[in-house]
């Protein structure tokens, strides 16, 4: 990854132009924007309240009254999919932000200080990465207790090692650049050196990893909820809706299909966006377009 100082306006414009010129990234941007837009407009678009029970519409197939059908309690699937997406996306975004908030300082510390600090941190990171992500998320959720907030912390812990390793790797390269050595030689304090000269150059790859991490977090949260350890009834997220829907897969497949399809579309959008960001912030990287 080419290393430059800070983010001057011209560089931002250049990266934006590359992003918008990347077809897959544009598709990802549009898909992500549509998904987020639908979710934010849930109070306007949803025809019912998410907890509104209609015993006359139990397991009803898609119809004019219920465009995506109704579930086992007669609740509108379209409404619950839109509102469930708010929680799914909120949990995913928050867990990624948490992972970045903790992982970036850890990576900066490990990369800049080096020595025993780096060794200890990296061995801990290696150990966390040795555990399969969903296995680790489930185990942490089991310790903290089932629930959406605990699942969010678990997903943040799972995403933390990748961010830490990425930042550390960047710092190891950047700290030997001439401008960093020059700043150190004139007596700039380490904290100022890291924050002003090193961290801005690390943000690009972190942004890419964060965008890709949102898709990963959505899948992990939905898997944890699907397995019964995330959102607890009556709270609905996409994953918990799929869990309920699976019991009626043969008779009422729409209950599971609608939220599962939204998960797929959202993850696809964020993954494409992340790949596009990678290409725009690092012109030497290769992509399909």
């Amino acid at each position, binding site marked *: 990854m080419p290393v430059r100082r800070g983010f001057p306006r011209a560089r931002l414009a250049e990266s934006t132009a590359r992003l918008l010129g990347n077809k897959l990234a544009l598709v990802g941007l549009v898909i992500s924007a549509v998904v987020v837009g639908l979710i934010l407009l849930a109070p306007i678009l949803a025809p019912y309240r998410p907890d509104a029970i209609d015993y006359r519409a139990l397991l009803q197939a898609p119809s004019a009254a219920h465009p995506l059908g109704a579930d086992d309690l007669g609740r509108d699937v379209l409404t619950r999919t839109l509102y469930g997406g708010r929680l799914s996306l909120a949990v995913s975004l928050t867990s990624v932000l948490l992972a970045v908030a903790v992982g970036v300082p850890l990576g900066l510390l490990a990369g800049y200080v080096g020595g025993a600090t780096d060794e200890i941190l990296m*061995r801990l990171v290696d150990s966390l990465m040795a555990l399969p992500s*969903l296995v680790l998320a489930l185990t942490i959720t089991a310790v903290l207790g089932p629930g959406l907030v605990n699942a969010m912390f678990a997903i943040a812990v799972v995403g933390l090692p990748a961010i830490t390793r990425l930042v550390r790797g960047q710092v190891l390269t950047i700290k030997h650049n001439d401008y960093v050595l020059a700043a150190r030689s004139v007596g700039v304090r380490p904290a100022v050196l890291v924050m002003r000269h090193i961290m801005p150059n690390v943000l690009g790859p972190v942004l890419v990893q964060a965008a890709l991490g949102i898709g990963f977090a959505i899948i992990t949260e939905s898997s944890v909820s699907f397995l019964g350890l995330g959102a607890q009834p009556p709270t609905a997220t996409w994953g918990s809706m799929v869990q309920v829907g699976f019991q009626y897969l043969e008779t009422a*497949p729409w209950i599971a299909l609608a939220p599962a399809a939204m998960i*797929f579309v959202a993850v696809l959008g964020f993954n494409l966006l992340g790949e596009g960001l990678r290409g725009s912030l690092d012109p030497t990287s290769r992509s399909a377009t």
Partner: protein
Amino acid sequence: MLNYAARRLLGTIPVIFLTSVIVFGLMRMLPGDPVQLLVGQSQAEVSAATIATIRHEYRLDEPIYVQYLAWAGHALSGDFGRSLQNREPVWQVLRPRILPTMQIGLTAWILAIVVSVPLGAITARRPGSAADWIGTGAALTGAAMPYFLVGGLLIYFVALRWGLLPPSGYVPPTQGILASARSTILPALTLSLGLGAVIARQSRASFGEVLQFQYIRSARAKGLSETKVMTHHAFKNAMLPVVTILGVQLATMFSGAVVTETIFAIPGIGRLLVDSILGRDYTVVQAVVLFITVLVVLANLLVDLLYGLLDPRIRRA
């Protein structure tokens, strides 16, 4: 090569040690008294002396590091304690679960490699072509589809609507090879999609890079067929980065197995983990997580050794 193998093997020891500490520590952080879990609802009728005896028997009255050392020492000899739910030795609970997971996981892994590596090579040969777009689209779609969506669609159409394969359950090979294969096709297909998507993208990137090298142009200029160029000249170098991610794929496979085995009611390690967590059988959870992690670490070690065999520069570094 021996030095390289020894160095890599020694490097896995601190990782396994730290992971075992993390797993043990996480289980000790579980809310509630472990003795409560052991005696169950009848705790009110159990005397304080009996509770003290149980606590002593399970070493719960000793410092945490002593508990860890005792547990680790026993674990090294295959003794992971007893299940809190049915009091059976944990290894007896875990052992029969290994075969279903390995059978489905290996099938999925082989399927993913057999389909995705050639797919990546084909799409890399003509970047920007229709084949490239279709292949890349398929890989991106596969990576974005959660396991329960793939599994749900396969169950609904293949099993329930068309009746071609069983929707759930597992038949061990000892009860019939054909029946066993039929029971593992759908779960293996479900798992292979996610694995294959990553392999396909890496394969495309690797072949795309290798096909730009001068020696490939020389091979083509000599008049070699495209098949010979791809298989004899490009394949080995392009496979190096792909081999690297194959080890990581094992971790992904176990993550996928947790969901897939739940969907298809397969009595494997993944489902055992979920059931143990929901049943608060923390001795089993501890053992399963450690077992999975050791397998993943050893698989990555094998991949590193394979990498050293494929590329002499690595083992000389």
